[in-house]
């Protein structure tokens, strides 16, 4: 396709917190500063900037891309906001990849910032208007409805219990204890998750990631620039994205086919034909615990209906054959929507550079995948990294 190679050479991330004192601009500045410092670059070296951020309704700031511009380092540069709902955090580096792979620039900054705490009484309320205004909103849906409906359909299809699914929450929240950005890392037990407050059966409180504030950034560069900057570039080997219909009730919710289509696109680009063997570490999106299992299957990392069993057997633990969400995921590190997706990409970047500290998975991983999901069970965004 005549695409140029693109490397990640720096990453920055703030702590994820419930109510940050900092504005979205200030958090963006901190993440960008850290990413540029790691890359050994100055802002003047950056040619283009792409910013990912979730719905404006969280911040209550219209034109959020323009609002975040100065903190994201975008003043008087080729700057643009990208948005595909909850899939934004992994789409943002894909968007940055387009800038560099196409030859439009050699250095592109990718920034994701989210400030959910501004929304009262609860950011969950901002999701009401994602449902169809005529045929669904009059039924007064809550956001959790759609997850509970999907989780039950998934459980029913494969005969899974709540415990089968809750193990993901236990794993990720415990993994997050080693992540310096973590908001809700805690030693929880299976009983804690099973006995937590019921919100919308079968979903309980500890099955869900928290609402968070936070920001993350990465620096993407062309091959030529990467060679000058570092002897440890991590290459973007494949990217994929796919969106399914907003008629969400007309598709069987047990399987995210849009994630599979996005994954197949990314794997083909990366030359991966057997993802179960060729991928060494994975960060699927886990806003709810069942979602990690759902996405492992969509990413073709295991056979359909097998993800829960593999989790119970420790296959997806940090020391397992395929570590899944070694960062602690959205469930443990926190879920400032777009920043979460980029946090997952950063986790793969650090794992492949063997710079993940206490979170480092064994076996010198060479290839990893990160994925985000969003909207009315509609979008899959996938990125494959290779060292």
């Amino acid at each position, binding site marked *: 396709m005549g695409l140029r190679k693109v490397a990640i050479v720096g990453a920055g991330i703030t*702590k994820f917190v419930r109510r940050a*004192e900092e504005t979205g601009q200030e958090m963006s500045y901190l993440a960008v*500063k850290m990413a540029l410092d790691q890359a050994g670059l100055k802002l003047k070296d950056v040619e283009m900037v792409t910013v990912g951020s979730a719905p404006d309704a969280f911040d209550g700031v219209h034109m959020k891309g323009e609002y975040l511009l100065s903190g994201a380092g975008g003043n008087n540069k080729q700057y643009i906001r990208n948005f595909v709902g909850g899939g934004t955090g992994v789409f943002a580096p894909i968007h940055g990849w387009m800038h560099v792979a196409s030859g439009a620039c050699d250095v592109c900054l990718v920034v994701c910032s989210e400030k959910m705490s501004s929304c009262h009484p609860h950011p969950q309320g901002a999701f009401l208007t994602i449902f169809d205004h005529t*045929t669904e909103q009059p039924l007064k849906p809550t956001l959790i*409805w759609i997850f509970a409906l999907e989780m039950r*359909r998934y459980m029913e299809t494969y005969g899974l219990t709540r415990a089968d699914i809750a193990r993901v929450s236990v794993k990720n929240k415990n993994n997050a204890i080693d992540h310096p*950005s973590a908001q809700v890392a805690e030693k929880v037990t299976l009983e804690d998750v099973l006995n937590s407050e019921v919100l919308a059966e079968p*979903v309980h409180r500890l099955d869900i990631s928290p609402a968070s504030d936070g920001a993350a950034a990465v620096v993407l560069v062309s091959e030529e620039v990467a060679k000058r900057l570092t002897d440890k570039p991590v290459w973007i080997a494949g990217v994929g994205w796919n969106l399914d219909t907003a*008629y969400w009730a007309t598709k069987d919710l047990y399987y995210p086919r849009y994630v599979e289509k996005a994954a197949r696109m990314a794997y083909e680009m990366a030359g991966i034909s057997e993802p179960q063997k060729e991928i060494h570490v994975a960060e699927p999106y886990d806003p709810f615990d069942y979602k990690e299992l759902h996405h492992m299957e969509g990413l073709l990392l295991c056979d359909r209906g097998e993800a829960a069993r593999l989790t119970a057997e420790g296959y997806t633990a940090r020391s397992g054959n395929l570590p899944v969400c070694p960062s602690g995921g959205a469930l443990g590190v926190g879920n400032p929507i777009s920043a979460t997706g980029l946090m997952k990409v950063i986790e793969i970047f650090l794992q492949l550079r063997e710079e993940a500290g206490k979170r480092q998975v064994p076996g010198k991983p060479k290839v990893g995948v990160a994925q985000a999901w969003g909207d009315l069970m509609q979008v899959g965004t996938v990125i494959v990294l290779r060292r």
Partner: protein
Amino acid sequence: MKIEQVPVKGLTSEEYDKAVKISWKPKLQYAWDNGIAIGKYLQALKEGKILASLCHGCGRTMLPARSFCELCWRPTDGETYVEDTGVVNTFAICHVNWDASRLKPDEPRHIPAVIEINGASSGQGIMHVLGNVNPADVKIGMKVRAVWKPAGEREGSITDIKYFEPY
């Protein structure tokens, strides 16, 4: 700079309560056009019927009604009434309101469901709520029928169906 050095720390509840706050309540209102296809769908609901669209390209009978087939990328080929009965594809029992506030113990739980409507193509479901049923008795695959508001109270809204109940 390392993450540990990034100053973002988050306010405690005490700090948050003490903080100077400015709040804004948007008073915008929206008047949404129903569109061509959904306009007919709502008119049918007012008459106590469920209207689906036909596509002769893929052969689907689609819900909710639509002006064009998004798969065949052509105009739909008219409409047909389908049954006001269906099968529960999946459901939830919800204990919270849309803004995350909790239902009171004596308030009835909300039971949203995806209902595959009889007469539409396989898998063509709509979201609605179940009623007149003990939440513990709801099952995937359960047969349900629409419970309509009285004709005089129907206004051309999805809520003209009060809920679906087992039959």
